[in-house]
């Protein structure tokens, strides 16, 4: 007659498990010591590289980085679930007001790098340059064929970002003049996905940070029909000659202090800015 399926072994194991769980609950949360950075998908590799370099050089520092889009980072900043928000666009006034309401003071803004929003086309595409007006036509759905902008007779497939992306909002404001994207623009969740899609599609066009352009060609952008085409090179972006230049930001709920301030100071130092150039963006200066 077998009475005890609960052998001593099983009892010991379950008690050990329970103790382990309880002990885990009492351990100091690593998260409490960590600096959380959330936000821009454009900046996520940059943020990760910064975190890796900083942690290597400063023992005891713990930095965790998540992407999700500038909108996600800003919402997290307002909700209070992140220390630093990375954003590839400036916070809007309503957002600053919401943050001020939640935290008692407006968020602190720091420019940490510069970037140009590149227009990607397939390498086989003959179109070399587009004006802002033509870009607006393409992404708002008014222009649907490449021959209308000087290319081959083929339909245009436009690739864009999800609406939580800072790049999406930047593009909407600066190219579409706050108009709507065409519903047919494919919404992809990350810049790399956009690049991949355009690389695979001879009739594709997309937009995203200049550092990601692998396997695609950057299309020159002209401010209007009379200007010369400008590519997003370092000089053009830093001087502002490239029409779609933008700053990349760090936002904190209050003025940076303590370990957060140390980190941001390091990011702005020559060491931190060297990482920026390494990743493919452009330094603040």
């Amino acid at each position, binding site marked *: 007659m*077998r*009475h*005890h*399926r*609960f052998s001593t072994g099983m009892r010991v194991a379950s008690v050990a*498990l*329970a103790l382990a*769980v309880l002990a*885990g*609950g*009492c*351990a*100091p*949360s*690593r*998260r*409490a010591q*960590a600096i959380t950075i959330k936000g821009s*998908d454009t900046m*996520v*590799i940059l943020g*990760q*590289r910064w*975190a890796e370099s900083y*942690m290597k050089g400063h023992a005891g520092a*713990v*930095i*965790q*980085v*998540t*992407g*999700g889009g500038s909108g996600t980072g800003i919402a997290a900043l307002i*909700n*209070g*679930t992140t220390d630093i928000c990375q954003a590839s666009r400036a916070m809007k006034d309503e957002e600053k007001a919401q943050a001020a309401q939640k935290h008692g003071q407006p968020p602190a803004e720091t420019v940490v790098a510069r970037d140009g929003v590149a227009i990607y086309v397939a390498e086989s595409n003959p179109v070399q340059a587009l004006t802002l007006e033509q870009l607006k036509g393409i992404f708002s759905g008014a222009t649907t064929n490449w021959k209308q902008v000087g290319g081959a007779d083929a339909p245009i497939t436009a690739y864009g970002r999800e609406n939580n992306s800072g790049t999406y909002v930047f593009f909407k404001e600066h190219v579409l003049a706050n108009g709507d994207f065409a519903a047919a623009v494919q919404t*992809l*969740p*990350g*810049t*790399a*996905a956009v*690049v*991949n899609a355009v690389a695979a599609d001879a009739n594709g066009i997309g937009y995203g940070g200049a550092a*990601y352009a*692998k*396997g695609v060609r950057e299309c020159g952008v002209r401010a209007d029909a009379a200007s010369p085409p400008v590519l997003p090179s370092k000089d053009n972006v830093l001087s502002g000659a490239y029409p779609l230049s933008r700053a990349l930001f760090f936002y904190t709920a209050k003025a940076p202090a303590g370990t957060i301030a140390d980190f941001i100071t390091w990011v702005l130092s020559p060491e931190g800015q060297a990482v920026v150039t390494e990743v493919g963006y452009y330094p603040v200066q």
Partner: protein
Amino acid sequence: MTTQAWESGLPALPRGRKTDVAGPALSGLTGFAAFLIVAMVVVIMGNIAWFGWRTVTWEFLSAAPREGMTAGGIFPAIFGTVALVLLMVVALIPFGVGAAIYLYEYARQDAWFTRAVRFSVNNLAGVPSIVFGLFGLGFFIQFVGRGIDRGLGLDVVWGQPSLLWAALTLALLNLPVVIVTAEEALRTVPREQREAALALGATHWQTIRRVLLPQAMPGILTGAILAVSRGAGEVAPIMFTGAAYFLPYLPTSPLDQFMELGYHVFVLSTQSPDIEGTKPLLYGTVLVLLLLTFLLNLTAILLRSRMRARLAGR
């Protein structure tokens, strides 16, 4: 008379010696359907195994990711997944098995409460996983978590995504599986044993604890394993309740965030900064996740068939 009743119900049967073409055709078509399904499963598993097997080395399983997820391993994701399902099981089994015991041993089958429980369990099983994610955010994090923060005078400690809330959300998601399999397991114990124990003067609880539960263990374990397998694979409920993409530390407390295999697959395939570079890591992660769920399901199936064989062989 009887033949007439039957014949009026059936469609006209072919009489005489017509070549029966439809018969083989139908069984051929349905057989083809079955074959197609098997072929698709083989193709999917084959594709993943083919591109992923080279990546899965010991280093891959034991190291942390490096260089923007293009090198290194996925140990933190494996650790996070294990921590998540362990916490889930601890929360889930007592309630699930307790509910099953109640339904089997204590409840009057026609009572409104019993019917309410069964109805709830059945419909809980059908709630979309993203709604569980919303619930985890709206109830556990926003209501319970923030409530605790307010009560303890903290800023934002409990009211944010963490292992605890993700595990509780998954526990609720898997509650129906555990209740149903545990009740099924209790039913496999022969009624004579239960009645004999009661006749000898044992109380309800003594019968359960000493006679029924030990014998229902394989079935209860099956339910736990199925829950673990589902818990390791579901991503929507944990996306907003605790999973993170890159953490430089392993979670040591239920209030930490965690990396997780399924979430890692999702982020790597859609938001990775370097899709070509992360492809090997991605395929490797998918293969590890598949192997994990596959092994768990296999164990559960074997346990279940052994349990059913015991029931049948009586």
